């Protein structure tokens, strides 16, 4: 029995927004479950095949905001065939049919069609926000229907999607009455933009805080845009300019000076260094800077700019900044929380003196006390450096290190990097995400299993010696949710040791490992609540044909995930669900 009437409890629940917490609340009692589910507005579904839309709607009738993730993470690196799945259409159909008052849809790694976008735009009259990350399958025609029909659209955020640009007039499709835009990001579009339409749209959107344009918006147009939107907080620059002339440059700088609210900068693909210097007037206000696409801007320019960015909390940069540059970051950006350093030159023949090494990483760890997330691509690493980093930064939540060459040992001792990563997991008690690389034996997994108590996501590539490695992780990391492994010698023994473990995990990915078809079949038999998918891209895509398959045959790609709705019906021929 509850002390308070349901409405009061519901009101209290309103203050609780975290998905985890709301999930916990719903487990307390039947009555709380009911109140919670009827009042739930925001739902996050980490794997769109773990549940189906009908059941979702049944449980959460008041749904306003839905986040869906489709393809597994390694799809980002082309390890998953395009036709694998992750279609959003059935979800939109079901939501429309049930007349859900959907206001926000956030999709990641899903297949979206123009048809889906059209249906979306016509079915939800209060629709406000569309965020698509790493999606594909649609064109600017779909965007046009969203622009035209979603009268209350506030946010259209397209991040790194594969969009077929029909060079149509989708920007023109925003009605003149549409003035509610707060965020517009079309940086991933490849084609020409109707500049006049864009300028008109920005001019009539006084609440626009975030604007990210694509490459086709030249500098003078950008200047005009900024002039009529001095309230911008987040700007994505995309234009190409070899060397702007004096006048354009001065005009740009004047417009930028007026943008006193600007806190976040990104873009700069194919932009001459001079364009970056135009932002000097506001750089001390910046909290977020993404120059990871600015391959044109040389290290010294980057360094000069960052020297003034004392309030930076988030920095995404290319390794052309070099160790010296990272030392400057370490001494300047004392508020830094998140750093990502991407490789700038994958095809460099000579030893690139200006790329980053363990020295830069150590400098950052020593200089930035608030650092909690790092993604670092480099060519070399040492145990000593990692041990020092661990000592300097015990607060890491995300630690992702990618040494470009697989199996590369500590370059000073030629030993494996087990001790270095071991130090990281031991010191960083709150570590939730870890990616390991370099030469690693089973020992590193022993450490991970022993110390990484909060670890939820682990990415392994070219590591380990025997099944023991994987077993250490499965047995030790109680909070593991996503485990993805490639090119490592883990096989059936590890896969099958504790089938119930997969109940507590969202998914497991194993590619180019030692698991066999027989092992996967056995797993599928013992765990009917799992979808065990085998992905095989052969020329003759007929797995059916080979019914005398050798059970000892190694499985190229295995993806398994817990689900309450059984095998999905939309799998392509190259995917077999056991």
């Amino acid at each position, binding site marked *: 029995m509850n002390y308070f009437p349901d409405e009061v409890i519901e009101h209290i629940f309103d203050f609780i927004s975290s998905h985890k917490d709301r999930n916990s609340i719903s487990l307390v009692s039947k009555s709380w479950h009911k109140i919670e589910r009827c009042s739930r507005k925001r739902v996050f579904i980490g794997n769109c095949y773990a549940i189906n839309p009908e059941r979702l709607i049944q449980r959460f009738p008041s749904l306003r905001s839905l986040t869906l993730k489709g393809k597994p993470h390694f799809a980002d690196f*082309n*390890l998953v065939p395009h036709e694998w799945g992750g279609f959003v259409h059935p979800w939109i159909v079901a939501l429309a049919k049930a007349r859900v008052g959907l206001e926000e849809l956030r999709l990641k790694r899903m297949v979206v069609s123009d048809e889906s976008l059209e249906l979306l735009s016509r079915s939800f009259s209060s629709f406000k926000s569309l965020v698509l990350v790493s999606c594909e399958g649609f064109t600017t025609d779909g965007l046009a229907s969203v622009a035209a029909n979603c009268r209350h659209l506030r946010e259209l955020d397209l991040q790194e999607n594969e969009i077929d640009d029909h060079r149509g007039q989708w920007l023109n499709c925003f009605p003149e009455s549409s003035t509610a835009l707060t965020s517009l990001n079309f940086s991933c579009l490849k084609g020409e933009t109707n500049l006049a339409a864009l300028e008109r749209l920005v001019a009539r959107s006084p609440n626009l805080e975030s604007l990210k344009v694509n490459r086709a918006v030249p500098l003078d147009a950008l200047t005009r845009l900024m002039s009529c939107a001095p309230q911008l907080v987040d700007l994505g620059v995309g234009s190409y300019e*070899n060397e702007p002339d004096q006048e354009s440059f001065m005009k740009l700088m004047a417009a930028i000076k007026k943008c006193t609210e600007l806190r976040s900068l990104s873009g700069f693909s194919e932009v001459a260094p001079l364009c970056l210097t135009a932002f000097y007037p506001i750089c001390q206000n910046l909290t977020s800077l993404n120059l990871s696409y600015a391959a*044109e801007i040389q290290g010294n320019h980057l360094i000069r700019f960052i020297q003034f960015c004392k309030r930076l909390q988030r920095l995404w940069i290319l390794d052309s900044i070099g160790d010296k540059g990272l030392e400057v970051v370490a001494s300047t950006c004392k508020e830094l929380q998140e750093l990502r350093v991407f*490789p700038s030159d994958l095809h460099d023949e*000579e030893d690139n003196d200006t790329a980053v090494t363990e020295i830069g990483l150590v400098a950052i760890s020593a200089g930035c006390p608030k650092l909690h997330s790092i993604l670092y691509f480099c060519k070399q690493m040492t145990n000593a450096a990692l041990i020092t980093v661990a000592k300097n930064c015990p607060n890491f939540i995300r630690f992702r290190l990618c040494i470009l060459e697989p199996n590369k040992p500590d370059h000073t001792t030629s030993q494996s990097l087990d001790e270095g990563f071991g130090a990281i997991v031991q010191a960083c008690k709150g570590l939730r995400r870890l990616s390991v690389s370099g030469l690693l034996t089973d020992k590193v997994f022993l450490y991970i299993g022993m110390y990484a108590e909060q670890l939820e996501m682990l990415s392994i590539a*070219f590591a380990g*010696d025997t099944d023991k490695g994987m077993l250490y992780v499965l047995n030790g990391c109680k909070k593991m949710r996503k485990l993805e492994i490639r090119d490592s*010698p883990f096989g059936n023994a590890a896969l099958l040791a504790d089938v119930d473990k997969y109940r507590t995990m969202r998914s497991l990915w194993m590619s180019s490992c030692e698991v066999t078809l027989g092992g996967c079949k056995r797993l599928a038999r013992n765990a009917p609540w799992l979808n065990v998918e085998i992905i095989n891209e052969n020329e003759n895509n007929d797995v059916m044909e080979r019914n005398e398959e050798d059970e000892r045959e190694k499985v190229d790609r295995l993806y398994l995930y817990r689900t309450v709705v059984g095998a999905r019906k939309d799998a392509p021929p190259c995917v077999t669900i056991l």
Partner: protein
Amino acid sequence: MSGFRDGCSSSGSVNVMIGVSSPAEEGEDDNAAAVALSSEDSCSPDETVAGTEIDLALGLSIGLNRSRNHSSKVRSFSSSLASSSSSSLTKESGTKRSADSSAAASKGQVAVGWPPLRTYRINSLVNQAKSVPTEDDIQKDTTTTTTKNSVVAAVKNDEVGFIKSPMLVKVTMDGVIIGRKIDLNALDSYEALAKTLEQMFFHTPSSVTTTRCKETTRASELLDGSSEYIITYQDKDGDWMLVGDVPWLMFLGCVKRLRIMRRSGETGGGK
């Protein structure tokens, strides 16, 4: 041990692996890999190095996919790689690399998925590094105006929706630590090239030059040979040539990178 390191840190080894997918990958876009993949079964760690560099390199990646004693096998492969002549290996992987990058550029896919970078990001890098103009580029080169703001011009013209890819080549100068990149597609002649280089390297009061940075050289001097510096370029075959001998468009077709050399240090050859 240092041999092992050298052999592996030459990115030739990484790129060769990138060129070779796991055997199940579609091989339609990467002919070199497809041809070589057919020898997968015959590859073994004991194969001799001589004359089997491609096979060996492939064996390396296949060894990675399939071997039992995983890491030790990789290590032995790597050391045998190191002992092979690294220049020829680089050359092989150089050819593969351009095949890969054009395949990657056209298809937006890197075969093996390593290093773990989103296609979107790799494409932006591939476009930056592309030094050999594709057929499209050559077509655009002759039809669009080659003003400085050539892309802006293209956008304003009837070339709706097509953004001309810049042709970026690395430029290094003797005595200067940090190299630069310039877009050759934005230039229309050797004079423009010399002028750009002059502005880049001889007028910037930068802290990046180690030697006396008060060099004053006029663009024309760079070209006619009266300056202390000469402009050289590395062509598709890896040879270093003097800039200015061939017609400009032909030059664009074969230039891979540029180097401003000090006359006195002219010993020929690359790095």
